[in-house]
Each structure stands twice: as C-alpha cells, then as structure tokens.
C-alpha cells in the first residue's frame, strides 16, 4: 500500500492545460469510438453477443477453480509447463527464474497489460536482462521511458512529430520525418534485429481455453507470432480471469473484442498456441495478483469479466480529455477506476470521482461490466472507509442537514440568492469558487417555484 494518494483532478490539470492537445487526443479517440460504432452496428445480433459473453464470463468466474485446473491439466498434456503466481512479485520471480535457467539475456515481448501491472520490465532489467517491447506503440513508450497511456493504444497520447523526433534520436531516422509509413518501416527494421537476437519471447494472453489447454493472443502486428516462434522459449503470462471454458466460446469473444477495441472485424493475427513449438518450450504463468480477492468481492467481482478491449476508455469523455496518465494507475479510464481502488483504495480514492456518471462505458462494454454503477458503488465505499477528504464530507453533511427540513431548505435558498445578488463580483468569483472559474453562476430569481406556485393558486382560489 502506498502512503500517498493521487488526485485525478490535479493530475488532469497538467494535460488539460494544453487545449489543442486535448482536442487532438479527444478526436483521435472519438475516431476509434466511431469506428467501433460502425463495426458494432454491422452486427445485427450485437446485443445478444454482449449478453452471451457476459453470461459466459459470469459462469466461468463462478467456477474458476475448476476451469483453471482443467486448463492446467490440458496445457500439461499438450507439453506446456504451467506455473502459478500468487502475486506480481512471484510472477516476476518465476519469469526471471525461467529466463536464467535458459541463460537468456535478451527477451522480446509482445503486448501484455499483465506484465505492466506486475512491473516486469524494470524487474528484469535490474537483473541484467534486456527487454524489448515489440508492439510498435509499446516500443514507442518504452523508448520514451513511459508506461502505456491506454491499454490497447499505448502511445495514443504521442503525436507523429514526436515519434519522428524520438526515432531520430533512438533509431537514427531522418530528422524531421513524420510520415507514419516511413517511421513504421524504420521501427520494423529495428525490431527485426531484436527478434533475431532474442533468446526468448514473452507474450500476454487474451483467452486461455480450459477444454483444450490452448492460449490465444490477438495482435495486429504479428509480433506475438514472431516473438514466440523465432526463439525456442515462449513464456505466456495469463491473468486467471482470462479463462474461457470452451473453444467455441471464442466465436463469441473474438467477434466482440476487435470490433470493440478498434472497430476491426477481427485482429490481423489471432494466434493459437497449443503446447510448445517442436523442439521448444512453452511456459504458462497463471497469475492471481489480487484477482481471487476481487472474485470474492460481492460488489466488484463483475469487473473481472473485462477482456481489456479499451472501448470504455475510448468512449469516456473524461479519459479523452484528461489523458491516460492522469489516472496514475496501470489501467486508466473507467475500468481502471474500478480496478485501481481494488488494488489500493487509499492511493486511488479519487478515481471513482473522475467520472460524470454518464454511463457510456456501461453501454459500450462488450461483456457488460456495469462500469458506472461500480464507480458509484465505489464512492460509497470510499466514504465508508473514511477516505474522502474531510471538507467534501462535511459539505455533504451540512447540505443533507439543510435538506431534511423544509424551512431550513427555504431559508437557505433565500440566503444563497441574497448572497449571490449582493456579493460584489470579484468576491463572488473567488479562488475557492470552482464553478465560477470557468462558468457564470446561474442568476438567482427573486421568487422560487414554490412561491410562484402558491401565489398563482392563491389567486385562483
């Protein structure tokens, strides 16, 4: 547990200060949301798919231990080696041990939010292992020494001019280059070398099928295939919530995933790994890291249904305007704001409040995580645990006290109206008036509705 807490609104200020960048970021993500809409609307039975996916996930989570054991049994049968990690630390140590046993000092990785969550890269680097993220966006943020700002589009906050500059410094591309094609080609060349040098490949996993023991990885760049077939050693890191019971379930999830994520009908590569390649080794690390605790949580267990498509980030009007880093958590946006406090409620207490409760995330989510309801539920928890700043807590106490009595309410209304009318503007729009920083206050009328209504009825009678 960290001692300090982060405040989303303060962190967001850093991003919102640059208006043009906010606008650009908002539009880039809205474009993805619009693509998603078009793709979803092309599937007539979309809502049925969402419901089915949600039910499969609910069912699987209810019987997770059985399915995990079934998965392990089948994966072993296919010749994979299976490891269980209780937490991030154990996960990192297992990966390191496997690498050390094979004398690996160069590792290529394809995209994995789980290893971000476990902070695997810095851990391995401390132990002298070179780690190269091979997903283009991941590589960009890695070269900048930043974490991803989005779970599907890790470098969405970086403009192509900035990529050009970065590549000029790190990969020796022409200075001032901004052509995405040229830059991508340069990155490809650079990564190809890394693939050839690598002694092991590590990948995340989108789905692990209990009945077959296979793991499925979805990418658009084919880097998971390269990274796991060129080197002989493949390590696949899986959060235990990634289990689905049957191969047939993929027919539901694969249709939802890419459409929700980027608006593609399917990702360019959907790689199925059933045991190791001939002459190679496949190690599957099943990671809990708090998931069992979430599964047992009466209020928040449904957040484990998440398939990390990123749609709730793309649609979130707050995320689009505050940027991924404002959440100060590995997973930003609506789902991150539910998961963040589950990991550390004190540090992440402000995330459930970084939300206008518009409900767009709940409607966009392909597996029906009731995101905005969970964020509201979290607020109740934050207050119950005494984590809300005392000023806000007190404000609500006072307001509630006023509203519990009609006369107190009417008098307070009068008083407020009087104060707003008679306070000089410079004093009214003071630095504590967060409303008035950017907005005019409403004009307080002299008579409330109840007064007008009473007058009118008095006249009528």
């Amino acid at each position: 547990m960290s001692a300090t807490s982060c405040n989303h609104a303060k962190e967001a200020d850093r991003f919102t200060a640059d208006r043009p960048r906010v606008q650009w970021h908002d539009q880039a993500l809205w474009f993805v949301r619009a693509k998603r809409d078009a793709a979803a609307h092309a599937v007539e039975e979309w809502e049925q798919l969402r419901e089915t996916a949600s039910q499969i996930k609910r069912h699987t989570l209810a019987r997770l231990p059985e399915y995990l054991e079934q998965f392990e049994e089948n994966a072993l049968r296919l010749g994979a080696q299976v490891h269980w990690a209780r937490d991030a630390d154990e996960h990192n140590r297992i990966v390191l041990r496997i690498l050390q046993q094979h004398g690996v000092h160069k590792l290529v990785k394809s995209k994995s939010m789980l290893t971000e969550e476990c902070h695997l890269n810095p851990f391995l680097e401390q132990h002298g292992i070179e780690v190269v993220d091979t997903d283009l966006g991941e590589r960009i943020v890695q070269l900048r020494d930043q974490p991803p700002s989005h779970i599907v589009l890790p470098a969405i906050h970086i403009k192509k001019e900035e990529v050009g500059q970065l590549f000029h410094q790190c990969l020796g591309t022409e200075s001032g280059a901004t052509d995405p094609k040229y830059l991508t080609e340069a990155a490809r060349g650079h990564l190809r070398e890394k693939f050839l040098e690598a002694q092991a490949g590590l990948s995340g996993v989108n789905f692990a099928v209990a009945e077959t023991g296979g793991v499925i990885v979805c990418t658009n760049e084919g880097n998971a295939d390269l990274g796991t077939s060129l080197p002989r050693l493949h390590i696949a890191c899986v959060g235990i919530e990634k289990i689905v019971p049957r191969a047939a379930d993929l027919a539901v999830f694969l249709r939802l995933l890419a459409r929700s994520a980027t608006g593609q009908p399917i990702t360019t590569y959907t790689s199925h790994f059933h045991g190791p390649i001939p002459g190679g080794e496949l190690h599957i690390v099943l990671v809990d890291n708090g998931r069992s605790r979430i599964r047992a949580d009466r209020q928040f267990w449904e957040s484990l249904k998440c398939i990390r498509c990123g749609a709730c980030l793309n649609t979130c009007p707050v995320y689009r305007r505050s940027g991924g880093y404002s959440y100060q958590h590995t997973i930003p946006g609506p789902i991150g704001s539910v998961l963040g406090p589950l990991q550390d409620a004190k540090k992440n207490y402000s995330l459930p409040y970084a939300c206008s409760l518009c409900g767009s995330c709940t409607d966009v989510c392909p597996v029906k995580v009731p995101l905005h309801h969970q964020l509201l539920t979290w607020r109740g928890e934050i207050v119950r645990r005494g984590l809300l700043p005392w000023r806000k807590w007190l404000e609500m106490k006072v307001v509630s006290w006023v509203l519990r009595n009609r006369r107190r309410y009417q008098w307070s209304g009068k008083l407020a109206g009087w104060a707003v009318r008679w306070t000089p503007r410079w004093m009214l729009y003071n630095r504590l008036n967060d409303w008035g920083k950017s907005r005019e206050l409403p004009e307080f009328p002299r008579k409330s509705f109840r007064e007008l209504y009473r007058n009118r009825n008095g006249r009528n009678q």
Partner: protein
Amino acid sequence: MQVGLFIPCYIDQLFPDVGMATVEVLEKLGVQVDFPIEQTCCGQPMANTGCIEDTRPLAERFLAIFRDYPYVVCPSGSCVSMVRHHYEAYLAGRPGFEELKRKTMELCEFLVQVLGIDRIDARFPHRVGLHNSCHGHRELRLGAASELVIRPYNKVRKLLESVDGIQLTELERPDECCGFGGTFAVNEQAVSTLMGLDRLQDHQQAGSEVITAADMSCLMHLDGLIRRNGKSLRVMHVAQIFAGRPLSGSPLATSLAK
C-alpha cells in the same frame, strides 16, 4: 388524473419558470397537478458523492411525501433516475417503494407513456439542438443510446419534432455528456469545462440557436459557459418549449419570434 409534482431543488430555487411551465403543460392536458410543499431534494448530490448515510433520510422523506399519489411527475431525468434506480439501497422492502419506483416518471416519459401523447400543441419557430442528458438517456432510456445496437427511438425528440415551426439540428455527437455530473462539475472543474465547451462547439457547428434538454442541470452548466464566453446560444428546458414560451432574453427573440 392527479399527479404529485416533484420539482428538483435546483429548479425550485434557480429556474422557477421550468416548474411553472411543467405545471402548465400538464394542466393543459387535463392533468390535476398537486405540489406537496414539504418536498426539498431527492438526495442525489449526497448519493453521488457516496455519502449514503446522508442520503437515507432524504429518500425516506421522499417516500413519505409522494407515496399516496397515483403518479409522480418530474421535469428532470436525473432526479427520476435517482428514485427509480438508486433508492433501492435505502428503501428496499419498504411499503409503497415498489409502486413509487414504477409511478415516478420524467415529464416526457409521462406524456408519451401514460397520456399517450405524440403531439405537443405549441409553436417554437427556431433551430433547436437537443442535448440528450445522460441519466434520462442511458438510465431511464428516454432514447436509444448511440453505443447500443438497437432500433433508434427518442421520446424527447419525438415530442419536440411535433412542435410547430421547430427545426431540430443534427449534432456530430448526439449523446455525449456535457460534463455537468453534479459535484463532478466542481471536483473536476477543468475536464468538466472542456466537456461543456465541446458540446457548445458541436451545437454551434450544427446551427442550433437554442439548446434544450429534459434536464435543467446540464443546461445550467452549459448556460454558465455560454455567458462566460459570450456565445450567442440560449438554453431552454423542454417544458418551456412545450408550454409555448418564446425564445427569451436574446436579441434573436424579438426578430425571430412571431
């Protein structure tokens, strides 16, 4: 038919004409309106902050005040959603609560579903942009949310379309949040403001003269931004348009209204 009129606190105190317009619309349709004077607030600000214990007494008051009416009608989707979807935590199992949930309705919903109205007898010869306030839109389902793959419908828009002379504008993002969000507007002042400004921009490019909504709270936030930034847009609650109010206070009002 008799209804209990539920006027949210901020409408009572800040926008009395929205309440009066609601009364007029209902009475014109033959509804007998009663405003129980003891009402104050549904408790949403406390509930949305997570202050559950500070909300409970207000939910209890609400039930006591409104439980005997055949219908409870309110010109705010957000406050109706509070009663229908969020009182569960405070009132589950209380006598009268299940009925209260069923019979508490947002104004447009009541007009369409209970009175079976599909035409409003009013004239408003202006270009109007409908802001689909989130709680009415996605919690009460007054309209089809753009995220869902369902047949499009919109109860508020349908009523507006029937108003004589009205021209509804087409937005690029027809149901994006305006950034009000209750205490969110002050907790996350910067982001809230950017969200609101983007809505205004969308309405401007679509040519709206007036922004209307079934929730005055969103409009209060947008109006604050309009006035601060000297924009020529106006805001009006749908009830005001339904009641035949002219476009008020703006220079355009005199030249365009008949």
